[in-house]
């Protein structure tokens, strides 16, 4: 039996098809993955993301520790509640995981890591935290619900106490704040506006049902994957892993080489790799009928890392790792046949709108 979130019984009751995901029994969809996708692009949907690991890091030297641990620079976090996306790297530059880190206070940062990598992440974090006397606490007592879509915020806010509504409504993108026992951040993984809410696991089912009563569509991991891919966002294990560094994974923007004196784990390797011709991660649009899938071969060179059917574009899209010298027109091998595809700029879709013409 896999691990279950506090919302498992609620999902089953609401008709979810359950699948294993990184050892967790999670909803794939509640009937139609495509309808759930459209609900998020056009209105509001919600995802149980309690399987992700919430880890609180505390200690007087926690900022110094994270400046060493992460490829992005937590020195950029100056106001409590501000979030930063970063990779955590091996000395080789390979990606251990990608994560979001929130500044909570001078002595407290909160990181959210992937479910499938949680245990190895914790071990790595604790090993490197010890010399800084920083404590890492896995917050298994918290559930997390992502509410996403153009109407997500206005449908969520009425659930807060009146005194807190205004403050929560004024959160800027990529900021979070504490509202009683809830931590609410204006973040997400869909390319739409919305909130990610961390709350006591004991309150999760009640909150989920209240959000549902607000007309927010429950959505599963299936829609989460098509939404993130349309938004051009990476999935750990597909688009980057321990054998691939951020610079060849479309994540150069998350590596802070400045200030030059900050010595983070993996920096030495990346300083060499950034001066070496190599591969890059690009968006692909299939010009013919069919569906791009991970591990399909790109001709003349490269490989699809994530592929799917885009419900918004009604076409197949993908992320692929190709040589930096690749021409814009390529071919992808699908079941032994070559199909034409174009390299396009990502994101494919953002805030409900297609950003590429098909």
């Amino acid at each position, binding site marked *: 039996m896999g691990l279950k979130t506090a919302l498992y019984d609620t999902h089953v009751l609401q008709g979810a*098809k359950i699948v294993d995901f990184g050892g967790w029994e999670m909803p*794939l*969809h509640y009937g*139609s*993955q*495509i309808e759930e996708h459209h609900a998020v692009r056009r209105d509001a949907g919600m995802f149980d993301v309690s399987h992700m690991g919430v880890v609180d890091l505390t200690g007087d030297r926690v900022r110094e520790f994270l400046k060493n641990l992460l490829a992005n620079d937590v020195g950029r976090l100056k106001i409590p509640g501000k979030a930063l996306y970063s990779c955590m790297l091996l000395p080789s530059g390979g990606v251990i995981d990608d994560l979001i880190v929130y500044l909570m206070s001078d002595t407290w940062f909160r990181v959210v890591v992937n479910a499938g990598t949680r245990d190895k992440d914790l071990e790595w974090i604790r090993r490197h935290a010890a010399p800084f006397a920083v404590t890492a606490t896995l917050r298994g007592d918290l559930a997390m619900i992502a509410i996403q879509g153009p109407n997500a915020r206005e449908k969520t806010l009425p659930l807060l106490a009146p005194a807190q509504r205004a403050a929560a409504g004024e959160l800027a993108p990529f900021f979070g704040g504490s509202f009683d026992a809830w931590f609410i951040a204006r973040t997400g993984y869909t390319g739409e506006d919305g909130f990610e809410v961390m709350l006591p696991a004991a309150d999760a089912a009640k909150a989920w049902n209240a959000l549902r009563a607000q007309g927010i569509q429950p959505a599963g991991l*299936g829609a989460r994957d*098509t939404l993130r891919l349309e938004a051009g966002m990476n999935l750990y294990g597909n688009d980057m892993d321990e054998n691939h560094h951020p610079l060849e994974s479309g994540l150069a923007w998350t590596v802070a080489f400045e200030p030059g004196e900050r010595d983070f784990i993996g920096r030495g390797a990346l300083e060499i790799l950034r001066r070496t011709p190599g591969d890059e991660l690009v968006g692909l649009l299939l010009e013919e*009928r*069919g*569906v791009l*899938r991970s591990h399909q071969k790109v001709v003349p060179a490269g490989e699809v890392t994530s592929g*799917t*059917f885009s*419900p918004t574009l009604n076409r*197949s899209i993908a992320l692929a790792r190709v040589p930096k010298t690749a021409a814009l027109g390529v071919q992808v091998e699908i*079941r032994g046949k070559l199909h034409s595809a174009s390299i396009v700029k990502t994101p494919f879709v953002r805030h409900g709108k297609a950003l590429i013409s098909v």
Partner: protein
Amino acid sequence: MSNIPSDLRYTKSHEWVRAAQDGAVEIGITDHAQSALGDLVFVEVPEAGRSVKAGEASAVVESVKAASDVYSPVSGKVIARNDQLASQPELLNQDPYGAGWMFRVQTSAPIDAAALMSAADYSNYLAEESK
């Protein structure tokens, strides 16, 4: 519960077969199969004139999540295909035994009855498979 019409025959790989006149048969995927695959977004059916063999991968259905082969339950020549599926793959989800039919085959050899299940047998097979 999955819908299993009693007038059709079924395969272990979740295709259905409807006997028409003159030894022709109509082929599709079962309600159980479409439900397990989820929203279908791409269907590739064999062209008329193509020869297919029983047990051969003859068509492809792709859901958002994955691609699956569809095996012809019979040997023969394809005499028609459902062209509507190209633009409306969701017909397979909405009406797997009707508007979602995939292709028709004129059989070249007698149908191997042992290889095909009755509705009752298929129902038992699904029950066993889900254990």
